[in-house]
């Protein structure tokens, strides 16, 4: 899944604006947003005006949404109103929200000592919640483990929080002995006696509770599903409609599956006479990533006569990079003359077109591992014109990691109903396989 857009300031600005307008993400959407790096970018945009609204959400919103609101208030945790709200919410909060409240309350240096007991009890009783969140947030790679180890002694993190990093170590590894070694090492580096005692207690618990450190859940169980990005897509579409334009790099990160499909669903013809009229100007005047994104967003309107003329006219003088994007919009026309199909295919197969087409295709579809099935889904999707499907066959040669699967897909093209697709499949097989 291409999630580079989560690290773009443009995305954070868009999501922040939508939240400020009073719309809040749903359960799964909020959890998808409450992750590094997006959450750090969003926190930077939280002003004091937003605090009351976010506090209201913490007080009464559903789990994920309350957790996100709590997370967004990180820089305000020490203010009395926020701290008091968090403390009051604890008793009635779900395990998910408690986990988020705990991390925020630990930012308070002078938190009453009784809280550490409550938090410890919570970690013990809701280990699964604590563990799953840490694994998502820090990651289970060595880098993730190193992040936690570094925070234990990093003076930039409040000393009130160090003990919870000790608890986090066994949540990130799958083997008890490794957890024990890491904990022992961390304890040895601590000067604070009371913290060392806490570490020793955790170490004893790790050694005596086999279920505490268990093998990682199956890959995929922590994955964010495409529908979790609906809110982000709403936010980005609204932000674009207000006339905000992403940078070239941001446009590149937005113009990838699965987000770009969600964005396209939100761009209708009416938008072009209104907030998104700039898309046409960008297509007409620019040739880089922003123009490529604008072209992508025009998908639902590309057969309108004036836009079709614009696309055809632009083809003549476009550089290969823009052509590699322009081609898809021109192919949206189910009545495109054969001569156009011929010209587009010749561009794809040309020495200057092929490397660019291949690169653009791969970036759009994902990774060499996923490209064949993505292309297959597009070919079999009845909402795509049959006359366009030959171009999806071109997306797999030299790009797919599984060459045999790529060849199989192209071979099936030999039996497709569209004679041009059959011709393309024959050429691709001859050249690449």
């Amino acid at each position, binding site marked *: 899944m291409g999630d580079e857009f989560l690290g773009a300031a443009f995305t954070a600005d868009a999501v922040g604006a939508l939240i400020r307008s009073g719309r809040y993400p749903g359960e799964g959407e909020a959890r998808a947003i409450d992750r590094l790096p997006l959450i750090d970018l969003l926190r930077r945009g939280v002003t004091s005006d937003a605090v009351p609204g976010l506090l209201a959400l913490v007080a009464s919103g559903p789990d994920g949404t309350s957790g996100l609101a709590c997370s967004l208030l990180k820089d305000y945790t020490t203010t009395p109103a926020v701290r008091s709200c968090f403390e009051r919410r604890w008793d009635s909060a779900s395990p998910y929200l408690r986990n988020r409240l705990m991390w925020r309350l630990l930012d308070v240096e002078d938190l009453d000592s009784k809280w550490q007991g409550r938090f410890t009890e919570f970690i013990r009783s809701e280990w699964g919640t604590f563990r799953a969140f840490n694994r998502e947030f820090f*990651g*289970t*790679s*060595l*880098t*993730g*483990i*190193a*992040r936690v*180890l*570094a925070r234990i002694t990093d003076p930039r993190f409040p000393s009130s929080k160090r003990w919870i990093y000790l608890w986090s170590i066994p949540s990130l*590894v*799958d*083997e008890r*002995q*490794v957890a*024990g*070694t*890491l904990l*022992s*090492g961390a304890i*040895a580096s601590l000067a604070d006696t009371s913290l060392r005692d806490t570490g020793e207690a955790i170490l004893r618990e790790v050694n005596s509770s086999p279920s505490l450190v268990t093998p*990682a859940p*199956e*890959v*995929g169980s922590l994955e964010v599903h495409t529908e979790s990005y609906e809110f982000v897509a709403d936010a980005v579409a609204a932000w674009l409609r207000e006339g905000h334009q992403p940078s070239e790099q941001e446009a590149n990160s937005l113009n990838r599956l699965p987000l770009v499909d969600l964005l396209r669903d939100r761009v209708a013809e009416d938008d072009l006479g209104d907030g998104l009229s700039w898309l046409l100007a960008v297509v007409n005047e620019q040739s880089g990533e922003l123009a490529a994104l604008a072209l992508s967003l025009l998908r639902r309107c590309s057969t309108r006569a004036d836009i079709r003329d614009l696309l055809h006219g632009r083809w003549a003088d476009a550089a290969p990079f823009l052509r590699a994007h322009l081609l898809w919009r021109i192919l949206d026309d189910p009545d495109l003359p054969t001569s156009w199909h011929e010209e587009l295919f010749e561009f794809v197969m040309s020495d200057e077109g092929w490397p660019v087409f291949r690169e653009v295709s791969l970036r759009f579809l994902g990774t060499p591992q996923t490209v*064949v*099935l993505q292309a*297959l*889904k597009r*070919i*079999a*999707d*009845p909402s795509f014109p049959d006359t366009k499907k030959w171009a999806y066959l071109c997306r797999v040669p030299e790009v797919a990691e*599984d060459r*045999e*699967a790529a*060849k*199989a*897909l*192209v*071979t*099936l093209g030999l*039996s*497709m*109903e569209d004679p041009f697709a059959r011709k393309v499949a024959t050429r691709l097989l001859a050249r690449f396989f």
Partner: protein
Amino acid sequence: MAGNHEPTSNALISSSFIAEAIVEHLRKGTSPSEEEAKHFDRPPLLLTLRQAMTPSDLGWSLRVVEEAAGPVAGLAASLAHDYIGEPEVRSCFENRWSTADPYLRNRLMWQMLDNPDCYRLWRERFFDFVLINWEVFTAFNLAFYGEPSKAVAHLVSRIEDPTIPASKKWLYGCCVFSVDSGVVGRALVSRSEHLAADAFSGMVVQALLDRPCHGGDEQLPNLPTVTHQGVSLPLVFVADAVVARMREGHRPTDAAAGVLNRLPIISALRGCITADDLPWLCQLVGEESGETAALYLSLIDEYGATIAWVGDLLRARWATADAFFRAHLIWRLLDDPNLSPAWHDKLFHFVMEEWPTFRDVSRQFLGPPEGVPTQMLKRLGDPSYIPSKKWACLCRLPDATDDPAAAKALIRLGRDCGDGFTREVADRLLKRFYCGDSGDV
């Protein structure tokens, strides 16, 4: 034929039937290629192979250590691991050291360190070898222990494991450094009390810490996250070994047969079968119905379509077969490109009527659900695959994958590109399994 080194399941590589077949093949003098030897010399298969070794195997294994080189000799040394206390083994390894290449030395070193006497006499030499041949040492460790994040976790657990001889722990410390010389590796090794407790290990750790830190102390290692990857097995060698064992009359248990009757190993096994094997295969197919009979049926492959008496046997067997056996038999019957339309109707009717059985057998054969759409795509797009059989491939897709959108897309594409009966099957599948969606029908 499947590729020579395919990811496969842990069940396959921990099967004692397969391990015994491989050792028997080696015992008879079949030499693996260097690549095959490297794959055998990795856990967890290596552990199962060692269990299949007997004292009488030392003769050939030591001869290979003396006469061969590189990974082939390294595998032989590794297989003799459990007998390192025997004087003849120790003497063979010590004598071989001076003439051995770096790959073999690395393997000899690991075995010799399980002998405490070797540790005392050879440890400095071994440490010099590691430092001088750091690249060979690292390459082997990465192949042996897997990706760095898993390797570090595993190696640390070896250092902390009280059952691992203290004489070997310094070498695990070196391994940690070889797979991760950054912040985490250095932190783990420098903090280990088990390494600090032994004077030589302490000296090794200090020497390693004094080496330059790759990537710099301040830089966190940029390593892949934990994933669950299949392990590789040299399929052709294993298939030769297993078929040779079966030809001698050794029957796999039902459990072992279930493990063998799956992709990709089954393709390699079929590649070893000749017409001469048909009598013993068909005898069991005619008489039994469990996993072992299903494996033998699978091995008959396309002979049912080319040899009349085999085809007759298979068609007759349908009448007496239970649902489990039919779910296997269907594929052999479909190997016949001239199978009558009435048979196709009958087989498809069985699939729809006995769906849970067909689905379960299919899932077991195909392996992990994420690979199913791609496997079926390859069959549908393979011009050499019998066209009249392709409809059954579409039946393998529903309920078998974690990507139902890909499965549905492939059924649609199969319908658009298939013959009349395939289109009919695709429409029925789309209606039954995809909320009545039959596309534009």
